[in-house]
């Protein structure tokens, strides 16, 4: 946990190696500058140094926007510390700006007194114009509130790699490694892992490999040997106290892919993943396409509809069908989702949410598809909805979603978002031996009595039997037309449609009895105030509530994983707080569902700016809400 005053003190001290609890660094440059690579390599080195961490890649939708423009700025933020770190941090302590546009876009996020590292080599008149600076900010008071480290990184990089025979363009590409070297020096991070990575990545182009390593070393040496000024010092962020165990860094896309593969193993089923590329969901397709040895088949379909339909076909034929997209693609899949609900086939549907509506903000995060997940289909078409809250959490959530899909013969919607998909955090590696089997039995022979009815039901779960083509004696036909409860054949009987609609709703509602009761993430199970969240807001809500409780405030954090149906005790739990705040990154969707279910009188706190909640924003709301409570009580 970070204390503002303490950090300011640290900056003013004259020690050359200062210990900090946590620090936020933001790398920003052109989308072609390799900022995401720089950030992820810094992340690996930081993880190996034993810090807890959280990252936030923040990049434009364009692959290579015109160089030097503000809309082409790509940034990577990392928060690391010796205590628990759950968010990428509110305001950067250090900003690395590789060009004027990066400075323009990111400077206002830097905390006053923070450090700004600038490549003066990129501050040409042309680049200044492109960034919209009338005057060179290095010569104006704009940077006065910050401590500025400026040098010609471009020139220093060119010098460091001049022996490798690179073109000027190739040589300048090593700028990010030079900068990374400097930052690794600044935070006392080892270079070995980065060097090893460069050796692998550029194994086939030895001069590029050697130039990048030389640039990295040069940046590091520059820190060691240069006189950077009296106010400058290196930092030390001690190892975090973590639970014993084996760790790695993981992004949400990775852990989700691995969770899906693990679910297939636990279900003893092959997986057929049908998908169509879309930001920010594509990394899941990439990750799973490398996992064929786990019986994971990936099919890049011609469109979103074909993607889900192929998964439905595979589920009909006995595999676990999985499909994935982001909001616009999920909208295209809606009709087929209805088919999977009507034919009661198991299916896992992943929605990596992004800003909407329509194309919206493809690379920015949002939680605005909750309505779409819970309500967004024609007809009365209920399905379970489950949300992951952190990158590591995706692993377990994928397994839980699969368990429900198979046990209840239903499509399940798994909500994640662009932030979770791309953000990285240290993850304590699970042991597969700790997970119970989620295997279900496919029907393998006809019953003795009477013809097979594909819509007969398990009395407990109401699930229908999964009879797979190829099985003699169980031949049957399914489809989107209403089926008779008695025979499974098509039926237009009005009373039958009522019965089937009731059964479909009842089946999903019963899941509430088969999921864990809602627990309190932090705090007490009753009190003055509860902050309720779901999905990727876990980090900021948790940090805000921890800080508020540290101040002595009576506030607790409740984070909902199972959104439909809700855990059976949720209504009663929420009723034990005087006030409830629902914080989410949309215009107020979970709160609508909570009001609908529990007639809950709650306050909605929302944000759709494409950036995660800041801890301070939520802390302010908590203060405000509790002060209002106090003044109301006084009246």
């Amino acid at each position, binding site marked *: 946990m970070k204390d503002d005053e303490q950090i300011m003190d640290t900056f003013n001290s004259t020690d050359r190696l200062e210990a900090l609890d946590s620090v936020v660094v933001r790398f920003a440059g052109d989308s072609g500058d390799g900022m995401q690579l720089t950030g992820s390599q810094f992340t690996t080195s930081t993880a190996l140094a034993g810090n807890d961490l959280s990252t936030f890649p923040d990049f434009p939708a364009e692959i290579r926007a015109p160089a030097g423009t503000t809309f082409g700025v790509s940034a990577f933020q990392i928060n690391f510390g010796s205590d628990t770190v759950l968010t990428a941090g509110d305001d950067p302590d250090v900003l690395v700006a590789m060009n004027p546009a990066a400075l323009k876009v990111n400077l206002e996020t830097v905390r006053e007194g923070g450090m700004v590292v600038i490549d003066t080599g990129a501050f040409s008149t042309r680049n200044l114009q492109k960034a919209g600076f009338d005057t060179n900010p290095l010569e104006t008071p704009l940077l006065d509130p910050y401590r500025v480290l400026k040098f010609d990184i471009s020139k220093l990089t060119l010098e460091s790699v001049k022996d490798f025979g690179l073109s000027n363009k190739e040589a300048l590409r090593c700028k990010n490694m030079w900068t990374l070297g400097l930052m690794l020096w600044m935070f006392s991070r080892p270079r070995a892992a980065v060097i090893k990575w460069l050796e692998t990545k550029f194994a086939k182009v030895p001069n590029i490999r050697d130039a990048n390593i030389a640039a990295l070393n040069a940046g590091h040496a520059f820190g060691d040997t240069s006189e950077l000024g009296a106010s400058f010092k290196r930092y030390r962020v001690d190892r975090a106290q973590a639970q014993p165990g084996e760790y*790695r*860094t993981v992004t949400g896309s990775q852990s989700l892919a691995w969770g899906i593969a693990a679910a297939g193993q636990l279900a003893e089923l092959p997986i057929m993943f049908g998908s169509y590329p879309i930001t920010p969901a594509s990394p899941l397709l990439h990750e799973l396409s490398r996992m*064929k*040895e786990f019986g994971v088949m990936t099919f890049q379909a011609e469109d979103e509809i*074909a993607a889900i339909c192929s998964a439905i076909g595979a589920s009909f034929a006995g595999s676990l069908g999985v499909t994935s997209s982001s909001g616009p693609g999920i909208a295209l899949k809606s009709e087929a989702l209805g088919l999977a609900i009507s034919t009661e086939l198991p299916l896992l549907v992943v929605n990596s949410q992004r800003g909407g509506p329509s194309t919206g903000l493809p690379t920015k995060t949002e939680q605005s598809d909750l309505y779409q997940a819970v309500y967004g289909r024609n007809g009365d078409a209920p399905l379970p909805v489950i949300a992951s809250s952190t990158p590591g959490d995706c692993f377990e959530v994928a397994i839980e979603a699969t368990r429900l899909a198979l046990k209840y013969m239903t499509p399940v919607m798994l909500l994640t978002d662009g932030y979770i998909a791309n953000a990285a955090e240290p993850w304590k590696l*699970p042991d597969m031996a700790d997970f119970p089997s989620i295997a279900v039995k496919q029907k393998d022979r006809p019953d003795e009595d009477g013809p097979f009815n594909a819509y007969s039901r398990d009395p407990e779960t109401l699930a229908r039997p999964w009879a797979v*083509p190829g099985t003699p*004696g169980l*031949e049957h036909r399914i489809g989107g037309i209403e089926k008779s409860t008695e025979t499974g054949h098509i039926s237009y009987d009005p009373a039958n449609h009522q019965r089937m609609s009731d059964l479909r709703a009842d089946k999903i509602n019963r899941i509430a009895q088969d999921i864990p009761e809602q627990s309190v993430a932090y705090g007490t199970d009753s009190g003055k105030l509860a902050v309720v969240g779901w999905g990727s807001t876990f980090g900021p809500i948790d940090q805000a509530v921890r800080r508020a409780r540290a101040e002595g405030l009576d506030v607790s954090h409740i984070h909902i994983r199972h959104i439909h149906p809700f855990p059976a005790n949720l209504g009663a739990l929420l009723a034990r707080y005087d006030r409830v705040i629902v914080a989410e990154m949309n215009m107020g969707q979970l709160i609508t569902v909570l009001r609908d279910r529990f007639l809950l009188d709650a306050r909605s706190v929302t944000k759709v700016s494409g950036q995660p909640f800041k801890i301070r924003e939520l802390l302010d709301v908590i203060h405000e809400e509790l002060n209002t409570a106090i003044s109301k009580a006084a009246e």
Partner: protein
Amino acid sequence: MNKPVGHLTAKDFASDQEVRWCPGCGDYAILKCMQRTLPELGATPANTVFVSGIGCSSRFPYYMATYGFHTIHGRAPAVATGVKLANPDLDVWLITGDGDGLSIGGNHLMHTLRRNVDLNILLFNNEIYGLTKGQYSPTSRAGTRSPSTPYGSLDRPLDPAAFALGSGARFVARTIDTAQKHMPEIFKRAHAHKGASFVEIFQNCIVYNDGVFNDFTEKSVLADRTLNVRHGEPMIFGKNRDKGLVFDQKTFKLKVATIGEDGISESDILVHDETNSTLAHLLATLSPPDFPMVIGVIYCAPSSSYERDMTAQMEAVKAEHGAPDINAYLRRGYTWTVE
């Protein structure tokens, strides 16, 4: 229930459901033909799957005592692809129509054909939307008057066989709902072909488009207006077997020649080569009245099928990696231990 393969009959493939097409619909003939032909193919109900989209023809699976999936409009090729990928050993038949397969589902049909998924695709072409009560379809001829085009349709029609060839189909054939001897042959050939088999069936809609194919399917004109092509045989047609196709080298087109006129003898008539894609494209676009409608196997050039290639790739990776181990997979790359 589980009769040996050799003892199965048409009855074993007929479900107990009442067939609900309009009396006189061409679909009945196709259904009967399928139920009759499957036993001859050595098929079993357990291992056979019929997948369909939406439309009159797409009710087909309900009437078969096999596995069946009546899916959503236009998407049957995608569902069937999933079925076949999950279990390549199944015999998968895809039933679609001109609206389902070429309008709302044209994209899926195109990609399924180019991927060469081993599906037997039957497109019932009646040049009209039946189930929605008679609107014109993408195969309707220009000028078709329908509830949505009271002054005549303006758009030019699509030729299904040419579409299939253009999409990269490796098997393209045509037959007619009333051709009860021809159709089983075509079904057998489609079934035998490993890869996507595309069959266009001219099917009469007795209610909304009755007689639309009469110009070549009527008994009185059938012999003169259709050409049943067979691999290795000269492309001769006509009541008197005196007409045939020849290649006009000047125009790069086919033309009809009469044997015995202009010095044309039987040996001058082109011999059908079903593996020749250029010829297939030429044959697919011929139509009456200047040319016969070509039926039979227009093109058949087998190539490896998508689901087999997919399975082979998966098996190769599995063989390389050995027994799957999630624990080991998670621990690849950089990890560290907290004591």
